[in-house]
């Protein structure tokens, strides 16, 4: 019997795939653990951290802001249309606020940052690897994990919650603008309803999610960059893998955090 027709072949393929995935999870976990361990061991590169903070935080503001603005507006229209089926149009301000703060702000903000930042980190570090700049760092007595990875991961973990907070505010204002201009809500009443129904935990849980997503985005970017293959194709593959992995992990982490925060 040929090997291709053996009944064990599909099972072996599944086994290989499972083992490969587990090995990957192990490698990424070790990488993340090593990154965090450098947080407690000098030297620290403040200039690199500030540079990463500007690149990841400040320069992501337009894309996160625009995403939140349009999402808030669309959410108001959807909730209004859905709520009209059982005469609940008045819930638009509170549902937009809660939806933005708890879910859409952190998740869409995280995904937009993943697209923008994980790709650029993976491409930058991947190019540094294939042009031997990482080896050069080592020969210059500089640990690449400390110099490249930690500043980016720390900056993303601190910057993304701020982006999420700003995105929440912009998203709510997007809903307000649509509510007032298209759905005939009174501007002051809309804002009062938003404030009255929004609780501190709604916002804080979203910010915590933002920190987790920022950590995931930068860690994936750095991991795939550091493990980039040779040449343009290797860097391209690393960039694509970083964005895909960061996006999937953000959605998975969002579910886990939501379970932890709101069903316990």
């Amino acid at each position: 019997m040929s090997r291709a027709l053996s009944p064990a072949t599909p099972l072996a393929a599944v086994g290989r795939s499972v083992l490969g995935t587990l090995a990957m999870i192990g490698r990424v976990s070790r990488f993340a653990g090593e990154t965090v361990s450098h947080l407690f061991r000098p030297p620290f590169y403040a200039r690199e951290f500030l540079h990463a903070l500007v690149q990841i935080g400040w320069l992501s503001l337009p894309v996160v802001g625009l995403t939140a603005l349009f999402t808030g507006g669309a959410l108001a229209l959807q909730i209004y249309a859905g709520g009209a089926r059982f005469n609940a149009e008045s819930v638009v301000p509170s549902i937009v606020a809660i939806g933005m703060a708890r879910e859409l702000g952190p998740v869409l903000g995280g995904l937009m940052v993943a697209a923008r930042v994980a790709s650029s980190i993976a491409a930058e570090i991947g190019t540094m690897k294939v042009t031997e700049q990482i080896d050069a760092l080592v020969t210059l007595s500089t640990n690449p994990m400390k110099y490249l990875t930690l500043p980016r991961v720390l900056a993303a973990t601190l910057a993304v919650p701020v982006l999420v907070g700003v995105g929440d505010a912009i998203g709510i204002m997007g809903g307000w603008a649509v509510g007032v201009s298209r759905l005939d809500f009174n501007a002051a009443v809309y804002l009062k309803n938003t404030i009255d129904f929004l609780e501190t935990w709604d916002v804080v849980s979203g910010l915590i999610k933002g920190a987790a997503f920022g950590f995931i985005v930068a860690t994936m970017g750095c991991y795939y960059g550091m493990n980039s293959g040779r040449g343009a194709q290797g860097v391209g593959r690393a960039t694509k893998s970083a964005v895909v992995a960061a996006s999937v992990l953000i959605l998975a982490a969002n579910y886990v955090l939501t379970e932890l925060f709101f069903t316990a």
Partner: protein
Amino acid sequence: MIELTDVHKSFGSKHVLRGVDLSIPKGTSMVIIGGSGTGKSVTLKCVLGLVRPDSGQITVDGNDVNTGDRDAFLARFGMLFQGGALFDSLPVWQNVAFRLLRGALKRPKAEAREIAIEKLRRVGLTPETADLFPAELSGGMQKRVGLARAIAAEPEIIFFDEPTTGLDPIMAGVINELIREIVTEMGATAMTITHDMSSVRAIADNVAMLHDGVIKWTGPVSRLDDSGDPYLDQFIHGRAEGPIEAVR
């Protein structure tokens, strides 16, 4: 003295080094030659600890390269990479003074800049180059900046990885002369890997021929042309016929 004893290294099923034995006396310039893919770069990276050998021993002045204080060990080395490996995000002077701006050898910024400019001048570049970024430099200038960075902290041991690759013959000659001058005036131990025979004759005190993962021949550069070794003869004369199989 750098000493490699029975060093083996494989990547998956590919055996790159199959028992490399080599000695580089202190203050001498050793050039390792060999075809592409014969393990020259891997040998160099094993000495630096960038790649860990599967077996065998590598010592520098009697100390194993994979034990002890890594920072102190690496502080003794300078390296010129094949493509320069300059950091794109930093201006030239910060590339040159990289080691002097952080870590154990940290100096005040102004002093580090002064040293960087002096090293740039040493490799034939003007002080105006200092504030340019690597992307603004030609290939030859990038090599010179890489050379300036390699010597900035006055290392005892300098490695040169294909120092003339991608350069025109005149620029290659300039880089070869610079390397020879700098190694001589610093009294450094040098290890160069190349397949450029003009570099070999300009830089080397001793030559080692690496083929099929082992050192096939080693001796002084003066014996290069009458070594009697068929591998070395084929390589230095660039013959297609001989014991080294040419892929056509």
